[in-house]
């Protein structure tokens, strides 16, 4: 987490994006390895370069990612295809990362989002406990800010 931006701000951004775009309620929760371990995630990432360097990642358990895509495309969850799910997660990541970037001081540039789907919990990088965890509609959301040059 960036020393400059408080965690509460990241929570606020994430909640705003979820409620305004999807109409979903999202609540911060404590990391639960048992619950997370059984899930696969769709992971989005945007990098920020310039006077501040780092990345913002957003992960969503697969079932929730499908419901989020359905909400954004205005269709039923069963009708959302893999491309739509990746697109939706990319856009949600772009919004969280972009909003975070506006809080940073100095001249920075935001990348376009990169999305990986069906990532098992054990392959989530950086290690899952470092993320901020949320529960939403029975699914899980993780958000993380990684300071430093791209890895």
């Amino acid at each position, binding site marked *: 987490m960036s020393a400059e931006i408080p965690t509460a701000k990241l929570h606020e951004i994430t909640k705003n994006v979820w409620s*305004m*775009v999807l109409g979903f309620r999202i609540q911060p929760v404590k990391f639960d390895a048992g619950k997370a371990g059984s899930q696969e995630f769709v992971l989005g990432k945007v990098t920020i370069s310039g006077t501040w360097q780092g990345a913002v990642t957003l992960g969503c358990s697969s079932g929730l990612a499908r419901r989020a895509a359905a909400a954004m495309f205005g269709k039923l969850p069963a009708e959302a295809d893999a491309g*739509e799910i990746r697109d939706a997660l990319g856009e949600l990541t772009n*919004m969280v990362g972009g909003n975070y970037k506006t809080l940073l001081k100095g001249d920075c540039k935001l990348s*376009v989002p990169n999305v990986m789907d069906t990532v098992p919990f054990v392959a989530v990088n950086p290690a899952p406990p470092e993320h901020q965890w949320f529960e939403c509609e029975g699914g899980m959301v993780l958000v993380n800010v990684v300071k430093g040059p791209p890895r």
Partner: protein
Amino acid sequence: MKILVVDDSRAMRALIRRTLRGTRYDAATIAEAENAGDALASIHESRPDLVLANFNMPGMSGIELLERLHDDGVDVSFGFITSDDSVANVERARQAGACFVIGKPFTRQALRRAVNEATEGKRNSP
């Protein structure tokens, strides 16, 4: 009324289209482009009344698209819808002649109000 929505995210284009549904723009022709290059060709060909563009896209950015239109002598109402509505980006957009910059996520009311104001002149023109 012709509106062109330019965003690399299909989900965002769908969201913008839905937000304008049920308004005075129900009868408008709403076209989409997934990148600024396609948008440039579309604008030259169909001359929309309003362009709603993302700021940050792969390849040519939204601001580069607007600057290119100026260079080409194309006068079109242009608004940005962006997740990165930083002071620097808003200032650059204003200097390039954008009608508005709306941050993502946006409310239905905010987008509709901005679009109404940007197209008001067009609706009142003879």
